[in-house]
């Protein structure tokens, strides 16, 4: 790792001040991506602002038919939350299948979505469930938030404070994990919400996206068969040592059907 300076403020205001005073500063949340990236010298921020000491950023509450999860809530706490298990079990299952136990004990929902790794699980969780991101200054719909590979609408000095999930009628998340890292080679979240069916796909392309054709078909008939013949155009899908673009396209359909099967 290259040298850097470090600060661990205890308030959101203190964090914003630190970010504004240091143009190359970066926030460290759980650090499960940032620290390995820095060790490989793929990232070299000269200032780290550690938000692990801001108590108000962690916790899970239920509010007006929504589950609100603080940005610094660890994956392990989402996975074991009775409230999440009760209201949105698929979100607890999604959190439980991230990485390994030690990663889940440190990694946070805010860090995961701010990083927007194309193979991360939470982006599918947020987009599939129609969540809203709350930052220090505004609210952003998940549909708008994720803009591209490792890109989001977040400003350089903006900090996510919470994610608000409307409770769906029913929802399931299925992923085909990379057996080593447990990142999603493809992950699909299917949700029936008060505003219709939503299908979000992670791992397949450069950024999470909604499979609209599947949503229309499932709206019409909520069965695995209704989407069995729907093939997505996979020409722009990710291709790496783990899977070809064509295989990822195939997996999207298989994971979507498994999710629908789990709900019917």
């Amino acid at each position, binding site marked *: 790792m290259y*040298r850097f300076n*470090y600060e661990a403020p205890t308030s959101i205001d203190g964090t914003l001040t630190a970010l504004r005073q240091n143009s190359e500063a970066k926030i460290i949340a759980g650090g499960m991506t940032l620290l390995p990236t820095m060790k490989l010298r793929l990232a070299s921020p000269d200032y780290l602002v*550690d938000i692990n000491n801001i108590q108000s950023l962690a916790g899970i509450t239920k509010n007006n038919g929504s589950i609100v999860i603080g940005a610094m809530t660890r994956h*392990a706490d989402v996975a*074991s939350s009775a409230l999440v298990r009760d209201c949105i079990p698929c979100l607890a299952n999604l959190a439980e299948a991230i990485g*390994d*136990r*030690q990663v889940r*004990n*440190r990694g946070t929902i805010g860090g995961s979505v701010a990083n927007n790794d194309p193979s991360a699980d939470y982006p599918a969780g947020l987009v599939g469930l129609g969540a809203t991101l709350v930052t220090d200054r505004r609210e952003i719909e998940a549909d708008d938030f994720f803009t591209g590979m490792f890109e989001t609408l977040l400003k350089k000095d903006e900090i996510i404070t919470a994610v608000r999930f409307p409770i769906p009628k029913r929802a399931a998340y299925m992923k085909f994990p990379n057996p080593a890292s447990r990142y999603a080679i493809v992950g699909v979240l299917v949700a029936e919400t008060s505003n219709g069916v939503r299908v979000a796909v992670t791992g397949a392309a450069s950024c999470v996206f909604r499979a609209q054709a599947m949503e229309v078909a499932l709206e019409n008939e909520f069965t695995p068969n209704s989407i069995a013949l729907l093939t997505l155009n996979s020409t722009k899908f990710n291709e790496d040592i783990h899977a070809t673009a064509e295989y990822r396209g195939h997996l999207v359909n298989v994971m979507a059907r498994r999710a629908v099967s789990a709900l019917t």
Partner: protein
Amino acid sequence: MKVSFSVNDKTVESDVEPRTLLVDFLRNNLGMTGTHVGCDTSQCGACVVHMDGRSIKSCTLLALQAEGREIKTIEGLAFGDKLHPMQAAFREEHGLQCGFCTPGMIMSAIDLLQSNGDPTEAEIRDGLEGNICRCTGYHNIVKSIQTAAKAQ
């Protein structure tokens, strides 16, 4: 920068570079080499310690991030000459071959039993997802954890 935290119930204070990893601090500054560095990329789990009772990978935490926290390492498990039940179970069931992964396996296994006191074999194997045994000696590691669970 100054840092102060508890390691196996003793307070340690030091001056560290911000980029110092917790595992390097334990091994180099404190001379506690029971915690191993395997892959150094948070995959293998040889460096697992507990922070405030939860298992974490100490190669992916800055020493500064342990400020004010309680760290428990493999050296802090035994009560004098009496092994911790998990250590005793690993000895009893021959849960190690070369021993390199063992400290991490034991720290992860203790955390696993904290949240699930009676895990199935599948749950144990799933719970050890973050620990790799280079000897592939998983069979007896799983058996050791089952023995420790029964002894609770």
